[in-house]
């Protein structure tokens, strides 16, 4: 990467511990590293419990106790996030980095109108007067396609439908003028028609404002729709990183292949069975000593039980952590 500009976000060897089965701390996120460039949409995917939410919370140093960020670095726009004084961190959240949390029900203030809450974010992060902020708030509500923003800005959260609430949250995350949006399952609760609209909005904002996005999602259809690059997480580790076309066309890791193969839409409509992935993600503290995926992997061989594969370059801008990748050249080169 010599000569290239430093990425907007750079995460290095992030390790996050949670209380384990018998009280001791066990790693839930283990030495995770990745970069996001300006204007890049990066999807973070994986099954439930893989560590996606903890990873995204760590970007703004918000992992909730007793969970603990043990080690690793997060650099945003050249600044060491973990080393920032508390007040600077506050300003970063909602300022440089906009956040949409996984639990939308709890993210809006129930006793304030969405217009007022939005205006306060704008006053705080952009230093506008109260009046100018109110105008700007209405502009953002329009920007996220909330119908009738002039009236809806006076609505309380409970008066909005789920789709409207999600759009209000997006406005809230964007109004502070962030360069990076971290959105955790922002469309999981939405109808497909509203989902298409929210995804279209993200693409438009990326084009207009060069907004970078870390999009946490279970839904590979959403990934296909908007992502430039994909990080596949399994049991607290990134097991594959690839440009989106490469990931769907030539998945490197058996876990990625299993996720793609399990989509009902990937099966012919008249097929009798869907390909399924047996078992479940091992909990933190119960991960096998070798490759974490080995107990569920259909392609495992001797080495996978004993040793742990690390991410290595796997061609066409991809990286994957799987011993099969090492084996291929060994077979070819006598």
């Amino acid at each position, binding site marked *: 990467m010599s000569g290239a500009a430093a990425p907007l976000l750079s995460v290095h060897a992030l390790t996050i511990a949670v209380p384990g089965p018998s009280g001791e701390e066990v790693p839930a996120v283990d030495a995770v590293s990745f970069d996001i460039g300006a204007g890049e949409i990066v999807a973070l995917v994986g099954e439930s419990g893989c560590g996606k939410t903890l990873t995204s919370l760590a970007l703004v140093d918000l992992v909730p106790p007793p969970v603990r960020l043990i080690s690793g670095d997060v650099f945003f726009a050249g600044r060491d996030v973990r080393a920032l004084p508390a007040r600077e961190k506050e300003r970063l959240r909602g300022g440089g980095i906009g956040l949409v949390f996984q639990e939308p029900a709890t993210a809006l203030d129930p006793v304030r109108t969405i217009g007022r809450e939005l205006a306060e974010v704008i006053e705080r992060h952009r230093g506008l007067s109260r009046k100018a902020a109110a105008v700007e708030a209405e502009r953002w509500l329009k920007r996220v396609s909330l119908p009738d923003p002039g009236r809806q800005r006076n609505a309380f959260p409970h008066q909005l439908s789920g789709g409207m609430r999600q759009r209000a949250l997006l406005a809230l995350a964007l109004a502070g003028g962030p360069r990076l949006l971290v959105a955790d399952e922002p469309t999981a609760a939405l109808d497909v028609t509203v989902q298409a609209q929210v995804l279209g909005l993200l693409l438009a904002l990326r084009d207009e404002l060069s907004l970078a996005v870390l999009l946490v999602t279970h839904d590979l259809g959403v990934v296909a729709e908007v992502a430039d690059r994909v990080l596949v997480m399994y049991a607290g580790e990134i097991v594959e990183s690839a440009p989106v076309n490469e990931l769907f066309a030539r998945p490197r890791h058996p876990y990625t292949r*299993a996720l793609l193969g*399990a989509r009902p839409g990937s099966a012919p409509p008249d097929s009798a069975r869907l390909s399924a992935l047996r078992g479940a993600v091992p909990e933190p503290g119960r991960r096998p000593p070798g490759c974490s995926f080995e107990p569920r992997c259909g392609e495992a061989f001797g080495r996978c039980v004993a040793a742990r594969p690390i991410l290595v370059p796997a061609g066409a801008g991809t990286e994957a952590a799987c011993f099969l990748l090492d084996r291929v050249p060994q077979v070819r080169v006598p």
Partner: protein
Amino acid sequence: MSASPPVPLLSVRDLHKTFASRAGPVTALHGVGFDLAAGSTLALVGESGSGKTTTARVVLRLATPDRGSVVFDGADWLGLPARELNRRRRDVGVVFQDPATSLDPRLTIGEIVAEPLAIHGIGARAERRARAAALVASVELPASALARLPRELSGGQRQRVAIARALATEPRLVVLDEPVSALDVSVRSQILNLLRDLQRGAPSRPAYLFIGHDLSVVRWIADRTAVMYMGRIVEEAPTPVLFASPRHPYTALLLASRPRETPGPRSLPRPVLTEPPSPVDPPPGCPFHPRCAFARPVCAQEMPALVSDPTESGRSVACHAPLGDD
């Protein structure tokens, strides 16, 4: 088509249901009707609030419609007296979206699965226990699960328990309300395979009324699909026909809004949308007309009836200007 089509297992006609809400009365069902053939699967799709769950609750007799009829297995289902209803409830099973809240947290898995058998007085205690064990095995859970509590299982395992329980009495109909929506793709495909295997392999060959919002799931599992919009069925057809050539503009919008299976340029234009109208204050005429790109003046005035498509047998559509007509 043969001269006389087989009598459907479930026949729903003209269901109406209005709820009181703080904002005013909400008409959740506005003349819903469909047939479900024995051993087959009908999917109900449509956006949040379109009346899918309310329809299911009427069929389950958990809600009483203001008007309309349900004929199940030859009986006037809504008119059944309580005693007769209790006797026949065993013919209908149900699985809800959230396995965490639909299973009694104090009972073991074995007790949960055997409970419907006890309620209907099926078998002696030992037989019920043996049957519960067989059911748990049929949903591919280990026998050790029988002694465990719901909270000791994963979400996918709990959904298997809910399915085993729903099938315990060998029902002829199972209502599945978003049964895989809360599950990961990996677990989801296991459960979908299981549902299909059970429909084909179980002695009672149950019919499914399947409610879902993931269209790729519906496409895979359902023989027929009914699209709901604001308390009405606006299109109903064999699933492959509906997906290949939607005729109602709302069906077309739903299909065009689906995320793609693989990345690449979009072949369909990205849908431009407005917010769905308020259920308290539905628009006059066709309820979809304010969002419809094909609306004509008549659409704002008259509600189009759901009529069978003259050009294609087996499809019904409620639209003044169905796609592909001109």
